């Protein structure tokens, strides 16, 4: 969140290199503002389903920014994975367990200060990692990254990390099934 708020004026300032950049910057501004607002509503709303829906808007904003940067494969994958699967499962879980309507109960939690602190820390760490590794490298927006290029680099340069992540996900999946099945076993 910090990173986005800081970089917005900076991006708007260097808009003299063509109409395209101006349009992209305006779009970025709108998307970023929407994302910030919905991210705030995710943690501030009292209705847990509304929170999930605001999360959808925030994630859709991420997808929109990816598409704006010409990384459309990543953008659509974002929609497929996060909006189409992760949040659907959130909502599914909510509906099966506590689907009461309206602001019946406060979803406020006593640990919110620690949570806020963690969020700020995470933002700082991630901003630092981003700035440290990329500095002021610019993305070439004019030539969009094709799906072929993405898959080529995943299945050649990054094949070992890719397989490691796949294995990790598989382990997490099996772990989740084991944990979920334990209660009726004994």
């Amino acid at each position, binding site marked *: 969140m910090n990173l986005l708020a800081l970089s917005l004026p900076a991006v708007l300032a260097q808009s003299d290199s063509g109409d*395209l950049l101006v349009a992209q910057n305006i779009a970025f501004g709108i998307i970023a503002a929407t994302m910030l607002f919905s991210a705030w509503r995710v943690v501030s709303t009292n*209705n847990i*389903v*509304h929170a999930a*829906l605001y999360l*959808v808007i925030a994630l859709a904003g991420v997808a929109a920014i990816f*598409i704006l940067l*010409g990384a*459309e*494969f990543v953008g*659509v*994958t974002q*929609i*497929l994975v996060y*909006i*189409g*699967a992760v949040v*659907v*499962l959130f*909502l*599914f879980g909510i*509906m*099966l367990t506590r*689907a009461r*309507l*309206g602001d019946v109960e406060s979803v406020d939690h006593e640990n919110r200060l620690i949570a806020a602190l963690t969020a700020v820390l995470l933002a700082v760490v991630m901003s630092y990692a981003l700035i440290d590794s990329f500095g002021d490298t610019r993305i070439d927006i*004019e*030539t*969009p990254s*094709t*799906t072929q290029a993405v898959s080529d680099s995943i299945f050649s340069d990054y094949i070992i990390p890719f397989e490691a992540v796949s294995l990790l996900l598989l382990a997490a999946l099996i772990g989740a099934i084991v944990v979920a099945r334990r209660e*009726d076993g004994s």
Partner: protein
Amino acid sequence: MSVFAVDPLLAGEVGLEVLAVVLFKVLVVFVLLIVSVMLMIWAERKIISDMQNRIGPTRAGPWGILQTLADGLKLIFKEDLIPDNANRTVFKLAPLLTLVPAFLTFSIIPLGGDFTDKDGVISLFGNDTYLQLADPPIGLLLFLAMSSVAVYGIMLAGWSSGSKYPLLGSVRATSQMISYEAALGLTVAAVFLQSGSFSTHTIVSEQSVWQWNMWFTGFVPMAIFMIAATAELNRPPFDLVEAEQELVGGFHTEYSSIRFALFYLAEFMNTITISAIVVTIFLGGPNGPIFIDAVAWLWPILWFTVKLFALLFTFIWMRATLPRFRYDQLMDLGWKVLTPVALGWLLFLGARDVANDRGWNPVLVVGVAVTAFAVFGALLLRAVRMGKQVRELEEMRG
């Protein structure tokens, strides 16, 4: 801009004229979809009536063809009820969330254009363009994304109604749609493997007059796609979502007036869109022989329409013929049959491509593939059976 530059219309300078052409295409696609939904609803009622020895709608217009229009007008003038318990914002949002993905998916369907000689390019008011609203390089991924976004409409409709039966209906719908998305995605992956592209335009131009992906991918992906699509659409025999004997009306029980009409429209619109997707990826899209050169532009559109009608008829036929599945049968079919078979078939197609590439002995490849299928199929069957036995044992004990 280069993201959209695949269409020759947008390759050059984008001026007012180009914008007008694009707007025209948007209008045409919109009207086309609405009108075909109208006709589809009428055709479904008529054909099912015929199959059940009834007459069906006859009053509005010749052969009752305006029945949908009459129903739509009636629904618009009805009172728009919102239950006291409902979550108002979400209740109003849900019908739109089902309708919008249906429209968006239709924008990537190539409706016509001569793909044998001219690469699907047609001339519209002096501008070269494709006869499809958009041809994003991500093409079919958009379809997959939209079909997973479409879950939201049904899910939220059931939840926001604030009543028992809609909630049960939407829980059923969500789990059903998530389950069948796996099989759907895997069969679409088989098409990606065959065509080497996500773009619907490229997928169509990779096929030709009779050489369709249906043959190249060995028919199995198309069969699985059709079954999974029926489940995604919540159409009979997979309409547990609105099983009226069990759930009153399912997720849209509390909806009335125009909001109900929107759900109804979206359901049929999705049927048309998915049939169009099947035509595009498996049946060669608008590809077909061109007989009279004077009206050459007409033939691809005609072929597309004929293929589309054949598929829509199949969907209606299935609805009239097959009894509804039980819920556990539905889940078993999705997870224990369709998904493994789709995955295995994808591996087989991949092996075939590698074998072609390397020049391996085809007989040997097929032999190994069949053996592997048999072994893994037997293992899977055994695992399923053992799981069942364990469950029965547990039930007997506790």
